[in-house]
């Protein structure tokens, strides 16, 4: 192949026709509150980890729904499990449990 000094660029869009939603389905099946999120951001606002990293629980669960499974598993490691997000969630999403479930799947779904 020839190198002309440039190349085609991959699209950065989400494509829901090809997105991997195994993790999202697993979380929805194992936590009845997973689907209740209204993306208000209260969790991310109060989050301890967000003060020092770019971790956001709201963003994390959204990315998982869009199929970003690999990066999401790495992200979930940043959570300190302090539980402040669970306290403020207006929809009673069990945020802490969801983090624990994600971390669990790192061991179980993809061994």
């Amino acid at each position, binding site marked *: 192949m020839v190198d002309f000094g440039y190349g085609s660029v991959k699209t950065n*869009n*989400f494509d*829901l026709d090809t997105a991997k939603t195994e993790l999202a389905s697993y979380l929805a099946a194992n936590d009845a509150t997973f*689907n209740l999120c209204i993306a208000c951001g209260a969790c991310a606002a109060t989050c301890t980890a967000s003060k020092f990293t770019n971790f956001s629980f709201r963003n994390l669960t*959204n990315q998982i729904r*869009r199929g970003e499974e690999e990066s999401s598993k790495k992200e979930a490691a940043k959570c300190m499990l302090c539980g402040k997000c669970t306290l403020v969630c207006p*929809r009673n999403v069990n945020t802490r449990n969801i983090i624990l479930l994600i971390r669990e799947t790192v061991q179980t779904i993809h061994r």
Partner: protein
Amino acid sequence: MDKSVAVIGGGVAGIETAAELGKLGYKVMLFERDSELGGNVRNWDRLFPSRRPAKEVVENALASLNGGISIYASTSISSIKKENGAFTIHSSDSKQFQAQAVVLTTGFELFPAEKKEEYGYGIFENIITSRELEKMFSDYGKPRMTNGKPPHRVAFIHCVGSRDEKVNRPYCSKVCCITAVKQAIEVKEAIPTAEIFCFYMDLRMFGHGYEQLYKEAQVKGVNFVRGRLSETSEAAEGRVIIKVEDTLASKPMRLTTDMVVLMVGMTPATGTDKILQSLGLKTNEDGFAPVKDVHLASTQMGVEGVFIAGACSGPNNITDSINEARSAALQVHGYLNGE
């Protein structure tokens, strides 16, 4: 009693106004341009938030009409003139009627979705309006693609012809968000394996039971994505590709769907502006009929003896339309007794 009241428009607001005035003993002339009474609710299958059948509301309203009410169906009103404290009502087929008070209940029409060219309504297959979906439920009990099969991925698009400067409809049409949530649940229940998406800009769940219905939709697995549809294109076999941004992730997104449902907004009924003009009134900035005072006199108009109820003054839901109708009837009663 020899005092007569003209009610212009035979939808639920008009029927309710006529019924209340009839109970109070007035002679009522109820005008409706269509051949049947009932207005837009006749074209609906089930109503939010309880999902009760729409025809219950229409039948209930019609049942309350008594003998003192004269119904003029297939009669379109073109103008109303106030002379010497009374009103002459002119129909478009040159008939005239006299009344001592008038109530405008001309309601709304749905926004013509083909005006949003980029949404491909009327061009691509399997793009329908919320009303067409209601008809599918009435006729078949579930949505149906043009090839007769049930869709397995349905996208609801909020704010079509509402909150949109490009089509000169900057206002919110109030009820489309809750309708989308209701319809999403209905589709999911009719086709349990279907993937349902609601693409919204904001979710307006203002009424009693609305937030709970939204939660129920989420529990049933409806996906809510905050992002506005930019365009549709046609994929193979009549499927529709849509492009939206997942604003919460700051990333554009595309997906191929089997069916797109456009939540079309409310637009003023044609002919209302001409009636207003004949009374010396201008439409409000949204093109609907102007009320006298939005807090204290929302069923009165700038002309003495003319009252208003329902979606004639702006997008409205059935509960509030019926309340306004009853309030307007009481206001008419007060007016005709010298208050």
